[in-house]
């Protein structure tokens, strides 16, 4: 808060000289966060001037800092009413709103404050941060310009203006400012990292302006003067600029970088593209292969050139390179060897070749009991790792029993290698045996209980098997002991993996409230990531680390393109749509439906919350108020621990739309996004948005089964719109829909044609069945259609099989058991289609074989019945 001028006596801002100096003291006490003393000073002023707006606001602000938020905000509001033309009251209000993350509102208050104190540096700096947070870059330029004009001696004001121009898209002005700034500098010491970063920023601006010679000149002279001290940055930018300038020096520059860090792909790419080659995309890669061979010889320890050669080579040349590559990896026992070469499998010839090489290494190293004893011990670990490699290979190719046999051999050879069990677990998971998979992963964990990686994996596999409580018990081995629950700690630590896995597990078990709770928590993690940048809008400019700051802004702008956000948004939106279609879903979950551990955790959380509140109450008592600064940010309070409020929210579709909104620009190539947007929009009566989403989906994959169902749905919805949609939306809607499916084709014909074209895809069969149900086909015919998905010539995986089962249940078919029996016979290793009685036994076996956490499971019948949905609806996860 800045000092104010003396108000005339008749004004309601007037304070007598004693109170006036007391108010100045209050402002400095606040700056120093001497909260207790500040509060005392405020009270003293208010004794004589109880309606003094600025003091009321300052007292309110102090109270919020002390954790007495509601009381404080009440006073702030009152203070504003008392003195609407004071910059202090609006500044205070802006601070409060910023703490509530209401950046737009805060900016309005600040703008108001500036009207009454135009050249207040504190206000202007805060405004600049808010404008950056809100990406209001034109306004930012004005603010930064004002700040520089007010204080041109502050170095950061120059940089800040340049950055503002840069962000607003005006690179030329940014450069002018930098040039002017550098003229003002005198006696910059050598090795000044801040100055070095500033110059690197200047070089970047020149490069973005495509002024390559100027950029290179500035870089070279600054490097020579030791004004730029970041040698790696110098080398990288230099190589890039020289390439762009087609300089003969470029080749050497890239070579120096490769020698500096031989494991960086970008450098090899830079080197070869400088030679006019395109790694992996050239028809004739022989030239690139020669280069890579030279680097391999020169840098014998470097992996990247050897691995890149495998990508480029083919036929005999590939075999000649792949053999030593695999052999050396197996000899060293590198666990990631298979994952490393797997991407080469897109070429079937390479797949074949790698399989042959690995099989032959296995053969050569297999111990031969009939020969002399020393030969047995020649390559025992190479043999072991070749078994591991091949097991992963066959598992990946869906040859599960072959993989399992190899793992049995390997485990008999070396029973203590956790990787063998993790591979067994993954194989069983792929084969649909989620319980067996979980047991195998737990076997791996038990071999190294100190390893959090194995702990996390085992917990994940338990969640995939629907064993949420048991997963939580494992996670708790590494989370904070004083947290209300392992999950609460992981959520606080922003573990996206945990939130998604547990959300999915709840979703599969039909506990939509808890699933939605986790998906919403993912959304909140991203909100926090977004808020986290705020302070850096000031901090980074003071530190002069501009390049990384600009990259950070760019990352923040694309934050929600993160796969975890997309997953959570899609899953959450689907639940909202389901609840909209069937509001009973929200009331069915009314008991919260938590698992045992969750109920315990909830109790603990409630207790912790109460303790917190008690403590807060204590703090409210004037006698115990302390100086402790609780800040202005609103602490997160969970008043809906079981997610029931979320699930029964009055406007589920609005919430779904909000989840999906960022994805229209951040994940426009994801067809699921457009399908979800359609589902939400059509139900909200936003017909135009709905068909436009379909058009976007269609552009990505016109034959997608989910899209097929929506096209039929859209046509049917259009036919029952009560009154025509007004222009201009109406005609565009009709035209777009007609382009997707012309009027003269009947829906039944469209559907049967689709089925005919895709009769060997189970997903398409399901889609056609869903569509025909919508078109009013009798149940029996739909069932008959669904069962064709079981034919031998149809490609059916477990995930789709589970969806098919879900659909039959949804249309209340009497043939669900029959379907499950057939599926159980089809997927021999899978437990997904076992009967409830069988599952109970399997589950018991898993938990009793597991050494840990089996003893606290009550094994009476009620528990088992409670878990019926959970047992029945275990779903295939994506292969990890």
């Amino acid at each position, binding site marked *: 808060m800045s000092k104010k001028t003396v108000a005339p006596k008749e004004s309601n801002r007037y304070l007598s000289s004693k109170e006036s100096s007391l108010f100045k003291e209050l402002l400095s006490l606040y700056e120093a966060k001497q909260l207790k003393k500040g509060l005392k000073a405020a009270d003293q002023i208010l004794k004589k001037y109880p309606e003094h707006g600025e003091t009321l606001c300052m007292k309110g602000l102090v109270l919020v800092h002390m954790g007495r938020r509601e009381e404080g905000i009440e006073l702030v509001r009152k203070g504003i009413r008392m003195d609407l033309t004071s910059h202090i009251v609006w500044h205070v209000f802006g601070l409060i709103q910023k703490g509530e993350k209401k950046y737009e509102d805060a900016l309005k208050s600040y703008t108001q404050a500036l009207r009454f104190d135009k050249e207040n540096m504190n206000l202007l700096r805060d405004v600049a941060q808010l404008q950056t947070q809100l990406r209001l870059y034109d306004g930012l330029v004005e603010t930064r310009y004002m700040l520089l004009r007010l204080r041109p001696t502050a170095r950061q004001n120059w940089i800040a203006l340049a950055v503002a121009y840069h962000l607003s898209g005006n690179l030329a002005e940014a450069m002018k400012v930098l040039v002017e700034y550098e003229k003002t500098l005198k006696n910059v010491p050598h*090795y000044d*990292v801040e100055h*070095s*970063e500033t110059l690197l920023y200047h070089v970047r601006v020149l490069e973005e302006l495509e002024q390559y010679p100027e950029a290179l000149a500035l870089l070279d002279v600054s490097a020579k003067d030791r004004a730029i*001290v*970041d*040698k*790696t*940055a110098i080398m990288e930018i230099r190589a890039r600029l020289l390439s762009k300038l087609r300089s003969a020096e470029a080749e050497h520059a890239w070579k120096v970088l490769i020698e500096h*860090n031989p*494991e*960086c*792909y*970008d450098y090899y790419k830079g080197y070869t593209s400088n030679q006019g080659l395109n790694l992996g995309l050239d028809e004739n890669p022989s030239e690139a292969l020669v280069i890579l061979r030279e680097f391999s010889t020169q840098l014998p320890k470097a*992996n*990247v050139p050897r691995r890149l050669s495998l990508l480029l080579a083919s036929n005999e040349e590939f075999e000649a390179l792949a053999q030593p590559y695999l052999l050396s990896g197996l000899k*060293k*026992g*590198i*666990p*990631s060897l298979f*994952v*490393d070469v797997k*991407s080469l499998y897109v070429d079937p010839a390479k797949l074949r070749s790698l399989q042959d090489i690995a099989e032959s290494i296995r053969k050569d190293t297999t111990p031969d009991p009939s020969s002399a004893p020393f030969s047995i011990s020649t390559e025992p670990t190479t043999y072991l790792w070749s078994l591991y490699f091949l097991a992963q290979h066959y598992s990946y190719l869906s040859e599960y029993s072959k993989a399992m046999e190899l793992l049995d051999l390997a485990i008999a050879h070396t029973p203590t290698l956790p*990787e063998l069990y*993790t591979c067994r677990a993954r194989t069983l998971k792929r084969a649909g045996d989620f319980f067996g998979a979980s047991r195998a992963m737990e076997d791996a964990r038990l071999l190294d209980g*100190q*390893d*959090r*990686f*194995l702990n*996390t994996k085992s917990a994940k596999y338990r969640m995939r098997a629907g064993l949420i409580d048991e997963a939580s018990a494992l996670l708790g081995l*590494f989370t*904070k002991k004083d947290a209300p629950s392992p999950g609460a700690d*992981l959520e606080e*630590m*922003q*573990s*996206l*993996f945990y939130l998604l896995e547990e959300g999915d597990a709840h979703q599969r078990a039909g506990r939509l409230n808890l699933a939605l709770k986790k998906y919403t928590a993912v959304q909140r993690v991203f909100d*926090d*990531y977004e808020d*986290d*940048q705020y302070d*850096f809008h000031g*901090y*980074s400019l003071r*530190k002069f*680390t501009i*390049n*990384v*700051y600009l*990259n*950070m802004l*760019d*990352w*923040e702008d*694309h934050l929600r393109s*993160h796969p*975890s956000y997309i997953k959570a948004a899609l899953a959450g939106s689907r639940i909202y749509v389901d609840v909209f279609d069937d509001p009973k879903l929200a009331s069915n979950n009314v008991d919260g439906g938590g698992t045992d551990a969750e109920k315990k955790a909830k109790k603990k959380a409630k207790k912790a919350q109460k303790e917190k509140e008690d403590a807060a109450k204590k703090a409210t008592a004037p006698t115990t108020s302390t100086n402790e600064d609780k800040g202005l940010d609103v602490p997160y309070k969970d008043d809906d621990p079981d997610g029931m409020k979320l699930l029964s929210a009055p406007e589920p579709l609005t919430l779904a739309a909000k989840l999906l909104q960022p994805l229209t620009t951040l994940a426009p190539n994801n067809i699921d996004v457009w399908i979800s947007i359609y589902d939400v929009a059509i139900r909200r009566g936003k017909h135009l948005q709905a068909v436009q989403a379909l058009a976007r989906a269609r552009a990505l994959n016109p034959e997608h089964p989910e899209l097929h169902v929506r096209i039929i749905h859209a046509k049917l919805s259009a036919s029952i719109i009560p009154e025509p949609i007004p222009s201009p939306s109406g005609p565009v809607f009709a035209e777009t829909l007609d382009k997707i499916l012309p009027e003269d084709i009947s829906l039944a014909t469209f559907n049967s044609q689709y089925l005919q074209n895709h009769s060997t895809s189970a997903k398409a069969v399901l889609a056609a069945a869903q569509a025909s149900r919508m078109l009013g086909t009798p149940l029996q015919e739909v069932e008959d259609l669904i069962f064709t998905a079981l034919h031998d010539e149809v490609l059916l995986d477990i995930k789709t099989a589970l969806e098919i089962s879900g659909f039959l249940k949804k249309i209340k078919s009497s043939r669900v058991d029959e379907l499950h029996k057939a599926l159980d016979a089809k997927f021999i290793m899978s437990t997904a289609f076992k009967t409830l009685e069988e599952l109970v036994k399997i589950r018991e076996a898993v938990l009793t074989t597991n050494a840990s956490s089996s003893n606290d499971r009550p094994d009476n019948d009620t528990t088992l019945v409670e878990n019926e949905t959970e047992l029945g609806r275990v779903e295939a996860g994506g292969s990890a």
Partner: protein
Amino acid sequence: MNIRLARPEDLSGMQAGNLVNLPENYLMKFWMYHILTWPQLSFVAENDKGHIVGYVLAKIDEESEEKGGEMHGHVNSISVLRSYRRLGLAKRLMMLSQDAMASVYKANYVSLHVRKSNIAAIGLYRDTLGFEVAEVEKKYYGDGEDAYVMKLFLKNQS
């Protein structure tokens, strides 16, 4: 594996890798603070899908006056996913960070904390990288375990 300087878009992968691997975890703002303050010191290893499989997060510290006030580097956190071990990633990540500490900040030495029981990590720091145990910090870790403070003096590179 591709080894390179850490960028802001790597942060969530680094945070996730840390959470599945190590018991000491940090909020995003902590990760941001480090690479926005010392953008030259943190590195990542990524697989061919672009997933972060290893990282080193480092900073520069100034000693207190009584200790000599020297500038030095400090490794906050380093880890490599279990499934990507034996490739020498940790060693390479450390060496790149150490190199940058010395060349950009003229750091005299680099320090780090390690659990007394973490034999594998101590082996890497001492035998492969040349660190030595400088002191023991009692009950440094949340669970009460002691930490070794290990140090490596960096060759002065001009």
